[in-house]
């Protein structure tokens, strides 16, 4: 299995967000600073689908509610792609780790 580098995970994540946003405006340049609520128009309930989708895509459980709590505690105005990436990089297990687990 491909190594889950930050670039690879970013690519997968953006693909997934695009997939959920069917009216995607392809001119939007998604960067790590792009906010998923304010810039991409997601709603809070979409967190559930995002969580289930990320778990399915990477085939592992993710501590998503904990992440959301941290977001709240830090009073962030929005969750950015960068936040999500930090979270994923901190929690995704590489296939080698999985094989060993």
């Amino acid at each position, binding site marked *: 299995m491909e190594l889950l580098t930050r670039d690879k995970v970013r690519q997968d994540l953006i693909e997934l967000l695009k997939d959920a946003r069917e009216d995607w405006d392809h001119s939007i340049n998604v960067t790590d600073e792009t906010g998923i609520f304010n810039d991409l128009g997601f709603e809070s*309930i979409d*967190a559930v*689908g995002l969580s289930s989708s990320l778990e*399915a895509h990477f085939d592992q459980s993710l501590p*998503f*509610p*904990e992440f959301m709590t941290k977001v709240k505690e830090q009073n962030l105005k929005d969750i950015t792609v960068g936040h999500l990436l930090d979270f994923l990089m901190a929690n995704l297990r590489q296939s080698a780790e999985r094989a060993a687990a």
Partner: protein
Amino acid sequence: MSKVVLFGLDGATYTVLDDLVARGMMPTLAEFMRTGVRAKMLSVKPPLTPPAWSTLVTGRTPGHHGVTGFFQYDAPDSLSIQLISSRQLVAETIWSMVNRQGKRAGSLNFVAHQPAPKIDGWVIPGWVSWRWIRRLSHPSTLIDKLKAELPGFDVKSLAIDFEEERKAIVGAPIDDYKDWVGLHINRETQWFNVMKHQMLHDPVDLVGVVYDGVDKLQHLLWPYLDPALTPAEPDAEFLRIRSLCWDYFRNIDNLLKQTMELAGPNTTIFICSDHGFTGSWEILFINNWLEERGYLTWKEGTEAVQDDNQELEPSFYRLSAFDLTRTKAYALTASSNGIYISVKGRKDENGIPPEEYESFRRKLIDELLNECVDPETGEKLITNVWTREEIFDGPMRDIAPDLTLALRDYGFVSVRRNRRMLAKRPQILGTHHPEGVLIARGPGIRQGAVIDDVHLVDVAPTALYSMGLSIPADLQGRVLNEIYTPEFLEAHKLRRGEETKAVAAAAGADAPGDEEAEILEKLKALGYIE
């Protein structure tokens, strides 16, 4: 052998259905009952939607299938909360059981089905917002295919909408119930249209669909639906709202009629509900009671709700509302009516010493049953307290609450802080009752019979029997022989098959957290609805 349709009506109860049949509002259901068999169907304890439907589709109890509520601890030694998904549903589903015997299945709007299991057939999960339903359905091309092929298909109407759903659980008056009821009528029709399209273009041998508006309407509008609560001289407003409710059930009746036509005579249809319904008139703030008894300490600054708060169950509390260093027992989530006992070394180093667990628990049960009383009348508020050994027995037992309560009005406890422990609701709201419905009709099924109570675990084995398939040896329910004619039973011997195929539990299930994240606020609705 017969094909099978599981026609799921979330929360359907004879209290309402019999009244509507008697009034001529549901002629198809009347005919269905005349030519089929009916029984009260006992739900799981507590009668909560996710564990209940999961029991129906697995033929296993919650301690075995792993779904205990809308949210649950991810492991016995963890303080992390998970949102329910198919990762927690660890027992084999009936969809998979029929697949293993060469039959195809379709599953629509069932809880704990996201991401959809990859069965031979098709699955659209329930409780998922429209943006994600495509990715979480199976096959992944299904939603796009429906958009292209099915006129009028609207994924936004089909999928759960938490903003609107929220109204199902908040007792505050809303200006126009018409739009709200209309939304549910439209949603059910969308699900039916999907089922019809799929049955015609991608046929399966077993199809299950859940119409969940029944539950939503009954939660919010129970006084208009329970004939015992109809005023002697109803005013125009009452009649107008009741008429809207009747529109909803007339539509359900129409969908049943179309389902029967679509399915044809060689299909057995099981109308089933995950639990019944009744009225709740009070709110027990159970954590306040635990505080009064010295079992619980709120963290400083935890806000109290108003006494006259009209919400059915206003919050799903984060663990951080409690001072865990000074808390021995707490109710964590609204709908499960569960109390967790904090035991040192179990999840952290707080709580009672493990050797005191049995005596502590016995004392707490005794106090809950005998000393949690109405301050005005002295009447006991809690009618039953179950241990997890009693109702969650099985490999997943230890993720469940230590104790589960049944209240005198069948209500859900509130887990919020209040200035007092008991409040009257300004108006009666619907709540879950342990007795749901099972009404079956089809080849070999007796006509017009009323049989003794059955249980949710019996549906899966009975559906398999109607399909002529063998029954996995480890299902916990039984084939309901009494619904069939003697001739049919004679001609179709029951065959026991190999055990169910274990589903890998979410390996290293480590999704956790504190559940009151703002972002999950909309999910609170789930806590009440169910």
